[in-house]
């Protein structure tokens, strides 16, 4: 065998054992029948997929989609000015980038728990608001859609900042000067020149935020308090409490299909000729 093949072998093996095989198992399970105490049984059936079209599950899928979309939009609104600031900073660029990545030094689970301690009725925010006399009863900050959205935006913000920063960093500063020179005020320059030219970064960031948000499990589980079910929680429920492995597998496959569809649409837009 060629040297090249030897070097690629570990990667192929990893993909085969850790990706292709599990995927095949999930795909197979999704077409089998539910066992009484969990697990799977014959015969083969597409019944799990038919159940996906139950309005209850469609609503959960739609809801996950909307949450992921909202989180992506909020991330963009927060990340773009931050990325622009870092890209145009005369000094301390690396310090700012380190700060953006700082949260990754702590486990995502721990950071999500930290939000519980901040948001709960006896948490920091509510205690402070009451001590200051701004509110008399704790605000319902935790266990709702808002808390889940907050958690998603918080968790995935760096994935939006970094790709946008990377494109803005390469943007020729003369283009910004040219826009001002031709009479554009700063906001117009950003909207008409900087945003359109950083589209590759915005698309990459949106993909990096939207896809994990769509399948998010931990954040809605901890901050939604079981009330805001997203599709990730649905999958988990099917494999644990509901003991319906085939349906859980079918939901996973459906989620994967949805993600692939979104990815294809995004990438097709990105490959449109720009220059």
């Amino acid at each position, binding site marked *: 065998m060629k040297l090249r093949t030897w070097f690629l072998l570990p990667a192929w093996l990893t993909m085969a054992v850790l990706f292709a095989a599990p995927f095949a198992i999930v795909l197979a399970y999704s077409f089998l029948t539910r066992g009484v105490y969990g697990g799977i049984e014959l015969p083969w059936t597409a019944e799990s997929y038919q159940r996906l079209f139950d309005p209850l599950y469609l609503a959960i899928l739609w809801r996950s989609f909307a949450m992921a979309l909202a989180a992506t939009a909020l991330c963009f609104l927060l990340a773009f000015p931050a990325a622009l600031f870092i890209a145009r900073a005369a000094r301390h660029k690396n310090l700012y980038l380190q700060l953006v990545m700082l949260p990754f030094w702590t486990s995502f689970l721990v950071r999500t728990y930290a939000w519980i301690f901040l948001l709960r009725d006896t948490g920091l925010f509510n205690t402070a608001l009451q001590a200051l006399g701004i509110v008399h009863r704790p605000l319902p900050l935790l266990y709702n859609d808002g808390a889940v959205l907050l958690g998603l935006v918080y968790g995935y913000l760096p994935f939006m900042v970094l790709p946008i920063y990377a494109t803005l960093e390469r943007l020729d500063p*003369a283009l910004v000067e040219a826009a001002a020179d*031709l009479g554009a005020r700063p906001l117009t320059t950003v909207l008409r020149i900087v945003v359109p030219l950083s589209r590759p970064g915005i698309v990459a960031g949106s993909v990096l935020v939207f896809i994990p948000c769509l399948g998010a499990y931990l954040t809605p589980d901890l901050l939604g308090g079981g009330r805001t079910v997203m599709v990730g929680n649905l999958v988990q429920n099917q494999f644990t409490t509901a003991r319906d492995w085939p349906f859980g597998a079918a939901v996973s496959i459906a989620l994967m299909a949805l993600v692939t569809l979104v990815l294809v649409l995004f990438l097709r837009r990105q490959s449109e000729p720009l*220059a």
Partner: protein
Amino acid sequence: MAPILELRKLVKHFPGQQAVREISLAIPRGSFFSLLGPSGCGKTTTLRLIAGFEQPTSGDILLEGEIVNQRKPYERNVSTVFQNYALFPHLTARGNVEFGLKRHRATDIDARVREVLELVGLTGKETRRPAQLSGGERQRVALARSLVLQPGVLLLDEPLAALDPKLRKQMRGELKAMQRRAGVTFLLVTHDQEEALSMSDHLAVMNEGRIEQVGSPEDVYLRPRSRFVAGFLGAVNWISGAGIRPEAVRLLPAGESTPDRRAPGVVTGSVFLGNCVQVQVRLHSGEDTVAQLPRGAALFQPGDAVQLAWSAADEMTFL
């Protein structure tokens, strides 16, 4: 007539560098004015100060008699043609030209775009993106984009540097013609003395953040006020303290008498340049000199004893 643009004791310091030391200049309305100097002499910084991309450390910039130091680039009635053109890559040629008009809320956009594209010779290329245009066409878009705004002064930062040599020479004439037709004041920054000499009505030679001399091309070339200006604008033979241009000297066989000034030497080589011949002569006094002779002039071989002759009127002397 009052100058359209005036610089008064303009100074710009960057950390650890005095880019512009103190410049005073008056640019006549409707003229083609060049700032000529070697790289790092402060000419581009001067242009950026006028455009408003940099703030002066001290001194004033007056446009139409008004001090504009505090005005933002988008509030100044000047426009810049950038060295690399800085065209917006996501907009078509037309989109680039319209950009400024839309910012100024012009009402007759269509007519003005058509007119300026005709002026720069780009009719028919409206829908092309910058990446689909040649270097020369990109430059025309950059010119059109600025000219369409009818700026008080058009600032051009080495506009021909990115073009290939043949196109560069052709564009010199075209730039000049466009300036005449548009009736806009052009302030051009260049390090190419041929460019400055061939296009300008007036030029200012800059060196190390200062202006060495201002005048017409003939003035500056024929009557340079410093050794730097003489040397920067063209080749100079330095013979016992006086400067003589290579095209102002003649070569005579050794011993021939002439009423002109002369210096004896030996031919060390010659270069055929097509329209002329450059003969290198080492003078007995030690200087290496060049004589630029018409093609038909008597030829000398390396080793020939000759004398360089020139008229006293062609001597450039400096204090």
